[in-house]
């Protein structure tokens, strides 16, 4: 006889987290169902590769399953999961030595990266534009714009210096503005930035 998983439906997340902490597999599966879209979106913004993003998101949930008994406050599950996601992403970068190399060529890439085309959907374009930035800049920008975190919170979470975070966000914002100008509504009475770019080209 097949075991039917328990449907927690609208049960409060803190309660489901408590059950998962006590080893309830179905409760954890429910948490994965609830939080996967958020974590997968975050990972996609960071790595711009849906397959890799899903692999990393899986690692996040597996680590959560292994360590959920260490979570002190059930109502802080989302923040804890986000910290795990950031750590997994940073580990991935370190493994590939991407942090160092990204720092080395970030300025060059920021200046010469190809602009994305306004095709294939906004998410794809955003991911492409983000991919032209260095990995730490991407991390900071996504935490700032997707998660609404302050510079101080980002610095604490990522272990980067506050000044570095500010600089990554300032330069990254500037770069994204240029690359995604097609999506930004021009102020009334002005020529859209994309047109200006097209006219400037020989």
């Amino acid at each position: 006889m097949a075991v039917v998983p328990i449907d927690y439906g609208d049960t409060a997340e803190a309660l489901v987290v408590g059950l998962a902490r006590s080893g309830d597999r179905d409760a954890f599966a429910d948490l994965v169902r609830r939080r996967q879209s958020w974590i997968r979106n975050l990972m996609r913004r960071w790595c711009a590769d849906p397959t890799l993003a899903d692999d990393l998101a899986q690692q996040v949930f597996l680590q959560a399953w292994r360590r959920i008994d260490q979570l002190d406050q059930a109502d802080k599950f989302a923040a804890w999961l986000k910290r795990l996601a950031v750590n997994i992403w940073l580990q991935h970068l370190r493994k590939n030595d991407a942090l160092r190399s990204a720092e080395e060529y970030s300025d060059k890439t920021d200046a010469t990266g190809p602009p994305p085309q306004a095709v294939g959907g906004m998410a794809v374009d955003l991911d492409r534009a983000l991919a032209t930035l260095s990995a730490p800049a991407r991390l900071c920008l996504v935490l700032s714009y997707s998660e609404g975190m302050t510079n101080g919170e980002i610095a604490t979470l990522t272990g980067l210096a506050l000044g570095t975070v500010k600089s990554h966000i300032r330069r990254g914002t500037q770069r994204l503005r240029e690359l995604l100008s097609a999506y930004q509504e021009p102020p009334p009475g002005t020529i859209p930035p994309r047109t200006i770019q097209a006219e400037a080209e020989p």
Partner: protein
Amino acid sequence: MTDQRDSSLQTLFADAEQDLTSDAFTSQVMTQADGLNRRAIALRVGLALALALCLWLLAGPLQQAVFMLTHSLTLSLINPESHLLSQLLLPVNNIAALIALGLISGRLAYRKIFA
């Protein structure tokens, strides 16, 4: 602390969010979690078996070593001819007492020198 953010980029990030919820992803994660659980159980059983095997193999030699140690600690240092004297000196006339005295005096000396 409030940070300045570009509002149009903020809207763009919000609009780019997709609903990526899928049962396939959940079942993949849970299959891997089950694998982790199975590996953890197998590891614990393996360790318990290895410990039991070690204890079984080493029980004889360990018992012998403990017996030899306790026997050597109770060996008399001197053999007084008088039975009464040997009874009186019994608590201190052995290797264990010598070691204990050595440790106590060493500790006292250490305190005197370094305190």
